[in-house]
Structure formats: C-alpha cells, structure tokens
C-alpha cells in the first residue's frame, strides 16, 4: 500500500467526516465481516425524488473498512438512489486509492455491501457478496 493512500485512509479512520446516526432515517442497514468482526451500519435520508439528502455510517473495525465507509457515504450524498444502486466495487476501490488482497478486499467492500443491502430493501444481514 503506498504511503500517500495509507495516510488518507488513516486520516479518515481517525477523523471520520460522516460518522454518526440519523434519527429518524428512511433507510438503515447493517452487516459485519465475519472474518474479522468489522461492523458497519449506514443510515440515509431520502427526499421525495429519491435523492439521498443525508447519509452517515457507524461501526467499528480496521482503518480500511471505516475509511471506505466514510468515503462511500460522502460519495452518495446528493445522489439519486438509482445512481447509488449503480456504484461498483471499482468505484469504492478507486476512492481508497490502493490495491488490496482478497482478505482486505472484504474489509473495503463491507460498506458497499451494507449500502446495497439497504437500497435493495433486504432484511438485515441478508445481503450477499453477489450484490457487489
């Protein structure tokens, strides 16, 4: 992992911009990475045009899972749900700016899995890797 990307990640980890809870919220969803206990919850508010007006994450875990959640939530604020549904793995990895092995990939993509589970209206914990 190159040093600049790592600095960004650690900075986001130590100083998250979008961490917290929204009460009330329109969409809320959570999941964890069974391999390492990372946990992410994402909550959204959506307006009448299905545009995300507010979004936050909460949880705990490694720098990659937390930074990736913070960056992902930032990315979707102001976007219509249709666009949110179209976010890919590669988008997430690009914003992290690093290459990851298969194990850390799961950390990086946990927040996307949670987000997709939420926007597809699944029951908590039912999102599978295939949504990615």
């Amino acid at each position, binding site marked *: 992992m190159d040093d600049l990307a790592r600095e960004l990640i650690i900075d986001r980890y130590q100083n998250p911009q979008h961490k917290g809870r929204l009460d009330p919220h329109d969409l809320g969803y959570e999941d*964890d990475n*069974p391999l390492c206990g990372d946990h992410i919850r994402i909550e959204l508010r959506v307006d009448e045009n299905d545009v995300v007006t507010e979004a936050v994450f909460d949880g705990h875990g490694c720098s990659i899972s937390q930074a990736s959640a913070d960056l992902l939530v930032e990315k979707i604020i102001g976007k219509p749900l249709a666009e949110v549904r179209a976010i890919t793995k590669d988008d997430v990895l690009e914003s992290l700016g690093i290459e990851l*092995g298969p*194990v*850390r990939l799961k950390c990086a993509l946990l927040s996307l899995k949670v987000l997709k589970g939420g926007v597809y209206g699944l029951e908590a914990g039912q999102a599978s890797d295939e949504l990615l």
Partner: protein
Amino acid sequence: MQTLNIEALKRDFPILAREVHEGIPLVYLDSAATSQKPAGVLDAMDTYYRRYNANIHRGVHKLAEEATGAYESARERISRFVNANQAREIIFTRNATEAINLVAYSWGRKNLTKGDLVILTEMEHHSNLVPWYILAEERGIELAYVPVTPEGLLDLDTYRMLLERKPKLAAFTHMSNVLGTINPVREMIAAAHAAGALALIDGAQAVPHLPVDIQELDADFYAFSSHKMCGPTGLGILYGKERLLEAMPPFMGGGDMIKRVELGRFTVNDLPHKFEAGTPAIAEVIGLGAAVEYLAEIGMEAIHAHERQLIQYALERLEEVPGVWVFGPEASQKGGVAAFTFDGVHPHDVAEILDGNGIAVRAGHHCAMPLHQKFNITATARASFYLYNDHRDVDVLIEGLYKVRKVFGKNDKPQGQAHG
C-alpha cells in the same frame, strides 16, 4: 479432434519411469482405483508448501493472501472444468464418499422421512449405497434398486416404473467402476425431474474420463474425487445447485462455516464455506486446480476418444485368451474399464502373477459387492485405463494373462472358484 501423443504424455508422469521389479517397468492399469499424477500437479503443491504455505481466509499477511487467492482460484477452475454455474456451488470434502455422505446427512435428514423412497442401482459403489442404508435404518426410508441387465446396462424400464412411485431422490453412478458402463445420465436426470425427484450423480469415474457438463446434465448433486483425476489424495468435490445448498442445514460445525458464534448460538456462513468446516485441504485443492488445467489442456474429448479406442482393442484381445470372461457392455457403451474372471484362477492370483510382470491390476469386489453378487461372483480382476496408457500396455497385459494360464495350466482341473 487430435489424437494423443502417449509417448509424450507418459513423460509427464514420473512414476511411469519406475521399474516395479528389477528390469521390469511399471504398466499401470489401476487408474479406476486411483490415477497417477503428472509432475505439474506435484510441483503446484510443492510450490505452495515451499513458497506460500499459510492458513486461508482469515489471514492478512502476504502468505495467507497468496494461499487464499490460489485456493479460491482453484475452486473457480474446478467449477469451470465441470461447468458448474458458480464456484460457490463447489464444496470441498475429503473424498467422493464424504461428498455423498454430506448429501445424505444434510439434505437427507432434512427432507426424507419414514416411507419416502430413494432409488439406487445395483451397480453402485458402496459409497453410494451405505450412506443410504444408514439413513434407511435411522429414518425408515425405503430404498429401491434399478437392476443391471446381463449385458451390464441399467434396466431403464424398471427405472421408469420406480419413478412412478414418486421417489424423493434418484442416486446413481455416471460410470460404473466395474462394468465401465456409461449410463445415460442426462435422460435419467430428466426423467427423475419429471417425476418430481432430485438426482444425485456419483461422478467419481466420469469426471476423470469424460467431458462432464453439470449444467447441461442438470444434476442436482454431483460428487467426484480428486485422486482419480490426476489430483492428490485427501480431496473430494460435491457440486450442489445453489438453491438446494442454501436450503440445507450445515453438516459439520467448526471454523470457517460460521459467520458469528456466541455462547450457545451461531450463524451459518455463506456458500461454499457453510459446508467447509475447519482448515480445508489447501494444498490438495491447489493440486487439483493444476490437474484440471492439465486435463483441460489435453482435452477431455480427446482423452475419452483415446480411452474408447483402447478399451475396444483391449476387449478384442481379451477375448482371445481362453478362460477369460469380461463383464459389462461392448466398447461403445463403456469407458476404459475391463473387469474379468479367469476360469480356475482366483482374481487375486491373476493380479499377483501379473504383478510379477510389472502390471498393476486390481482384484476383488472393487467396492461393488452387490454388483458382484448379482453376477454370482465374489471377485473380479480389473484392468483400467487412462490417458497415459497405450496399445503396448494392453499387449503386455495379454502376455501376462498367457503367463497366468501357464502357471495354473499344467494341471487341468479348474475348480471354477473364480466363479463361485
């Protein structure tokens, strides 16, 4: 389709350079029991152990990531080799036997209750009989058997009649390890489905020797073994349709098959991990990945064609030898397996005398006692072929059988025990 260059192929298998006794080279005709391994498969495992041996899935360090990557990409390759729909439908077990037991324990105990019917056949390997016997004893399910005709084929009329009794499952072999019979599995699966039954196929002898397309067959469960297809021991494969596997309860409990564990409670992990409890056979999966790559490169069509040619020649030549009786259908309906008896000579003695000439054949019931009982014999000698065998190997076998005659022949009072 190109024909195989057997001379060149033989060089891929280090063991074939071995002399069994001084000056007597190995002629390996026991591939139905286990196949030999090409150097590339051994190298793949050795490289794993020497370069990146680590436990998988849970590790962040380099070795663990390399090992996880190699393990999961081998799963992808194996999945493509049999054309499964997705790699998550490929479950790794200890051997084909465990794969079938997994279905009997997990699917069977959930879905079968007293009086339910499971159809088997008389030509099954013990692996596809005993798990169902155990279940029958435990649950009172009923078992029925598709008979084998004198020619060594399944009696499909009876199969269809049995299907009318609304079985829950039909479980049968793709290819017999004794008769060599290749069963019409696609039609049999379709008939099972039409009758509302699921179909489990024992492909332990088929995947090594034939092109197998599980999606085209539409098999619900399909079991096979690594060690018979140029891969290492200690590894079997269960294919299951995703929705079936999803609905099944876990079999073994332990690490990796869970998502979450608390005291007294656990959540099951996603497929395929749900059925892979504990540290898997990492090196072995990587080895099998190399094996399917090797086989795919040669081409399963070409391998099958080669073996068909070889069995045809072998059957012709065996017919020459007085006192030899081969079981099973004609060459066009079977794979490269010839099980036979020898008048007045027990199969064990046949095998031992052949061994003196460097020829490895198997003698016994080949884990198919009911089939032998059907033919009213206790044992056969069995020569079985693979991609590395050629006409010359058949010739050596025939010479060996003439030697058997000679050793036993001087006294011409055969006791007929080979048939009793």
